[in-house]
């Protein structure tokens, strides 16, 4: 693509991602409603999609308040960090063979870096609020995200090993014969769980568990600043779904339909799956969350790493014979 084409595509991508995240707020409530045998928001417009506009108007017209006891500079900075980091993460996603913003040899590491930078948003938001609930929420999220980041990166190394590259386009191309969800089923499982924990959604939303921490790290936030946190969370959900599609379900690959449509369909199915998880699984206790991460998930990823290494060596050996 030409320079101008890339810039145009990047801007379109930002618009699509933010728009998608906004629609997702309504879609999620509707879908949960259907699965839980109730209606959900269905009053405004066809199927209730006008709810998105109503919510946005409400958030925009709310008083943009900064608590006098807070650390003003950090308080305002925190919600923007997550949105910027998540949007940057989209830059390395290959949507179709020629449709991407950036194809670098470290694409996968870039994505991991951006998700780890998104932690600061929650952390600094909790710290700057100068509120005990917010502080506890921030502390929890720091511990949760650092723990789950450890095996999030490790769970993807199997994919990298089989492909021999960190470039996401190369990873998709390497799945022509077999999607990685088959040989890397352990990696998929662990990455899925780490992905939910990283975007701190239910059932892993302990940083903002409302029955024990009022609203956790964003207790003091309202109006547009709160909306930024929510936007970041939904962007994170879309980004994780895009990454799982790219890494484990063959990205744009598929018969008959155009590549971009295949990519969108797979991502959409994964988003629906995440919403279903939210409706189906209760929130664990905090120590259960930590135990799951360190005692089960980490050994599982290490096992996957060893098995994949053996497999890769075996394949390499056969090729030479």
């Amino acid at each position, binding site marked *: 693509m030409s320079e101008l084409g890339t810039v145009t595509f990047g801007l379109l991508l930002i618009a699509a991602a933010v728009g998608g995240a906004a629609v997702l707020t309504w879609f999620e409530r509707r879908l949960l409603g259907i699965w839980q045998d109730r209606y959900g928001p269905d009053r405004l417009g066809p199927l209730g999609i006008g709810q998105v506009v109503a919510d946005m108007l409400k958030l925009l017209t709310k008083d943009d308040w900064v608590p006098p006891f807070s650390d003003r500079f950090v308080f305002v900075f925190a919600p923007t960090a997550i949105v910027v980091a998540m949007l940057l993460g989209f830059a390395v996603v290959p949507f179709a063979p020629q449709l991407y913003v950036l194809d670098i*040899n470290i694409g996968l*590491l870039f994505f991991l*870096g951006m998700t780890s*930078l998104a*932690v600061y948003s929650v*952390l*600094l938001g909790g710290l700057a609020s100068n509120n005990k609930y917010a502080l506890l929420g*921030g502390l929890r999220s720091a511990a949760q995200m*650092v723990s789950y*980041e450890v095996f999030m990166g490790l769970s993807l190394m199997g994919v990298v090993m089989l492909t021999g590259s960190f470039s996401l386009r190369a990873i998709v191309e390497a799945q022509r014969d077999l999607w990685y969800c088959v040989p890397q089923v352990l990696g998929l499982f662990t990455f899925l769980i780490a992905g939910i924990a990283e975007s701190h959604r239910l059932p892993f939303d302990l940083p903002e568990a409302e029955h024990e921490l009022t609203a956790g790290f964003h207790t003091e936030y309202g109006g547009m600043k709160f909306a930024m946190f929510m936007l970041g969370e939904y962007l994170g959900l879309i980004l994780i779904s895009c990454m799982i599609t790219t890494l484990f379900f063959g990205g744009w690959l598929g018969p008959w339909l155009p590549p971009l449509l295949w990519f969108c369909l797979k991502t959409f199915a994964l988003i629906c799956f995440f919403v279903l998880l939210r409706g189906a699984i209760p929130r664990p206790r905090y120590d259960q969350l930590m135990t799951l991460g360190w005692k089960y998930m980490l050994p599982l990823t290490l096992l996957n790493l060893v098995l994949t290494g053996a497999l890769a060596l075996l394949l390499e050996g056969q090729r030479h014979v």
Partner: protein
Amino acid sequence: MLETLFYGAALIALTATAAALTRANAAHALIYLIVSLLAVAVLFFLLGAPFAAALEIVIYAGAIMVLFVFVIMMLNVGESGRAQEREWLRARHWIVPGILAAALLLELLLALRHNPVATSAMEVDPKRVGLALFGPYVLAVEIASLLLLAALVGAYHLGRHFIVRREDQR
């Protein structure tokens, strides 16, 4: 173009580091330090070491600094901590460190004058980093792993008391 980007990132790194040193508020100082690390990552990228740049973001900015912020949140330093910090940042405390740092800078400049470093346009891809780490530098990797193992055992030893005490209460 590349040079402009390089000097821009270098300027950001220097300013952010200076700010990180002089802020009395620990949280603000840490944010400046994170910005400085990100700027250094950009420098690595521009110098043709994308792998090092990615690790700088994932490990330093993304993990180690998070733990620093975590500690600051645990300690919850208020106005008294900031006052103490301001006390330590007085001008006369800067004299000796300033002289030492100036001497180091002078040495660095002299060294650079005698053998100027050629900026290579060659890109170092992740595979070559791995081959170098487990080829000529394998001893350094092993020593680092020993050090980390020792730290792990030490952390377990310190934390064990808490585990035992909790089981007593049950």
